[in-house]
């Protein structure tokens, strides 16, 4: 059984102003320090921290002002701090702190830094309906991996795909298919992590075929700069080799490719 709070602390805990302060501090600590400590997590980008904190701030403001009584109580310490003579020191301290924070934020915004500016990068380029592969037209819409039609030969294709992967893809995409190959640290953005459920797990095999075949140079004009170092593999691999390596990627990661929705007419959509 937990011990009751001391009366002075209970007074603060029950006051909407200090509740608001506590919620904001708690939310900040949670997002900035606790989330990165969770297993498999990483630091939260500043843009997301800002987004979360603004949402929490709006929530807190709604909480303190949705009842007249709570709103009046919430404003009491602020009014007191601004006008009461006995709080002159606190007033001076708060006003100085607010000015300093504004100054620091402004300084942080304008100081020179060697870091590249944050990149607003769209991750899913829109595929064309049709591509030309070594002079042959291939319609991507509704296209399935043709090798899957030969169930008996799948082990052969997988072995071929494995070979293709280790000969060509390994240096960047890594032994674990996690985008951490030997050369990975030289790229920004990092090579795709196929183990992540946000990459091939979300895509049709035809999309992956288009990305492998056309690489960075084949990315659409909108959303540039893509900064992709992915080669245009149609210059080095045959159509069958590309489909084989795609089979291998899905087999090795355990993801299932996105499938096409069947239209009423029977065609794929």
């Amino acid at each position, binding site marked *: 059984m937990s011990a009751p709070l001391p009366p002075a602390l209970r007074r603060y805990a029950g006051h909407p102003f200090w509740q608001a302060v506590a919620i904001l501090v708690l939310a900040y600590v949670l997002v900035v320090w606790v*989330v990165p400590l969770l297993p498999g997590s990483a630091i939260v980008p500043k843009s997301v921290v800002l987004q979360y904190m603004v949402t929490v701030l709006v929530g807190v403001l709604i*909480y303190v*002002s949705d*009842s007249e009584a709570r709103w009046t109580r919430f404003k009491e310490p602020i009014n007191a701090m601004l006008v009461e003579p006995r709080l002159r020191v606190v007033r001076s301290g708060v006003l100085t702190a607010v000015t300093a924070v504004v100054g620091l934020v402004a300084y942080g915004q304008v100081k020179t830094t060697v870091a590249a500016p944050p990149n607003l990068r769209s991750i899913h380029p829109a595929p*064309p*309906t049709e591509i030309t592969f070594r002079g042959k037209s291939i319609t991507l819409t509704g296209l399935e991996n043709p090798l899957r039609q030969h169930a008996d030969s799948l082990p052969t294709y997988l072995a071929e795909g494995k070979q293709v992967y280790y000969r060509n893809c390994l240096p960047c995409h890594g032994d674990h298919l996690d985008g951490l190959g030997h050369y990975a640290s030289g790229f920004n953005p990092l090579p795709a992590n196929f183990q992540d459920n946000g990459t091939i*797990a979300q895509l049709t095999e035809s999309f992956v075929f288009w990305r492998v075949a056309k690489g960075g140079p084949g990315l659409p004009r*909108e959303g540039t700069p893509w900064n992709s170092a992915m080669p245009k593999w149609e210059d080095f691999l045959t159509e069958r080799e590309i489909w084989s390596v795609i089979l291998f990627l899905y087999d090795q990661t355990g993801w299932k490719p*996105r499938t096409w929705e069947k239209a009423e007419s029977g065609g794929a959509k």
Partner: protein
Amino acid sequence: MTDSALLLLQAAADTTRAYGEFPVIGARAAVWIAAEVHLMFAAFVLGVPMFAVVAEAIGLFGKDQRYDRLAREFTRLLLVAYSATAIWGAVLVFFLATLYPRFWAYLTTIFGPSMWVYAGLFFCESFTLYLYYYGWDRWKYGRTKLVHWGLGILLNVWGTVVMFIANSWLTYMMTPPRDITPTTDPATIKLWHAIANATWMPINVHRVIANVVFGGAIVAAYASYRFLVAKTDEERAHYDWMGYVGNFIAISALIVLPFAGYWLGREIYQYDQSMGITMMGGFMSWLWVIQAFLIAVLFLTGNYYLWIGMGRIPGAERFQPYTKYLLLVLVLGAIVWGTPHTMIADSKELAAMGGSHHPLLGALGVMSAKNTAVNLMILTTFLSFLLYRRANTRPVVPWARTGTLIQAAMFVVAAGVVLFYGIRGYFVEAIVRIGFSVYQVLAVLACIVCVTVIDILMGRGAASLGAIRWGKMPPRSQYALFILAVTFTWLMGLMGFARSGIRQYWHVWQVMQDTSKYAATPALGYASKMISLCVLIFLSLVGFVFWLGGLAEKSTFVPAGEGEKGARHVGH
């Protein structure tokens, strides 16, 4: 000959006469402003009559004069708003004809007859409006009042058909039937074939609902303006009540709007996956993060208004302690709803995350999480309404306790279904996951319908705990209504751009290229500024319309005791 060669030929065939130029801001910006402001006024003049005719019906059948006067007050504003809509419509047509003559000629070749019908219906609509407004006093009693109400319905029918016709033109630009190619002679395209394209009906449904939302929000904003400048308690009471009604209609319709939007998005994906990916996952995807923010603002502000409103309802004290839990769900929902899948990060943060997907929070950036969050936010908002509605009543039916328990169980089951499919969505392939959203939506809708029916039955003969103290609202509640109207307007502009912008450098998707110097899709920052400017122009003009409305006639508020129920009215 390949398609790309044909497209090149088409581009080469364009002469300088295909495009005109507009001074200073350029042709695209001119058409953009004209189209957007026209559309906003059109939404206003389509949304408000829906509001007016429903209000008149409540006044007529519920024998409450306040609703009848409310309907009339808004119809008066419509007269000026109609002129503004027509003026901006004419500006748009002139701009299109002079700045994009070739494209305009193409559209008129296909849709010419529908444009004549459009003009005829607009004529009918305008004169029905005049009859509706100027006949208010003449057809006030008995059967003639029913005829008058019928005119209101007719006004809505004309308006809706007019909108459907205009929708066919813009949806054809997005999703022309698949058998139409760059070489198809527009004169050979059958009119109905072009009208009944893949996104026509989804847009029609989406816009009808959105217009109801918009009409309600504008009504509420008007009421809040009149509340803030009111001189007497009676006036404040009237406009407080009007603001409540506007907000109620706006939020009620907003609850079903995401489902209509989802249908539209799905049709776009099905028509052309690259268009869908550009919109949701590609370079337009950041608009959806902004949209998520704005929708969260709508939900939070709508609920906030209700919670403040509980302060003027005797008996609401029973429910007020629970609003903080509703707020918690809404804030958590807003956080999940707004978490981007691809995050803005500097190089250090990118390296630490191993890419632009956060290894943990990235899970909140996918559709399973988003659908779960928005469905729970809708359920929470509905619960807020329910508590507000019940605040000053106590059910007297013998099965009241059982009924309340059944309602609670329905909420729990609906939330459980939403959460179950939300979590399960992470463990199934995409094609199965897409289907889960339908179950989530059905669970929420079923809960809303069943709980409402039970509540209506349970509320029969309910004991009153006291009359609502209309007018006893702090000013900040009225600013909340302003925020709602501005947010709705801004959202309309932003999402309209997302829908229209995914055509990229095509006037008609993969049929007719935009070969003007403005063919490139504008950057999101530029687009946001343009949309904000349109919102500013529209709201300034609407403010002017409100002011004119005040000039033309005095307020129609009903002082306490004058109406058949008057300000002593207890229910909602």
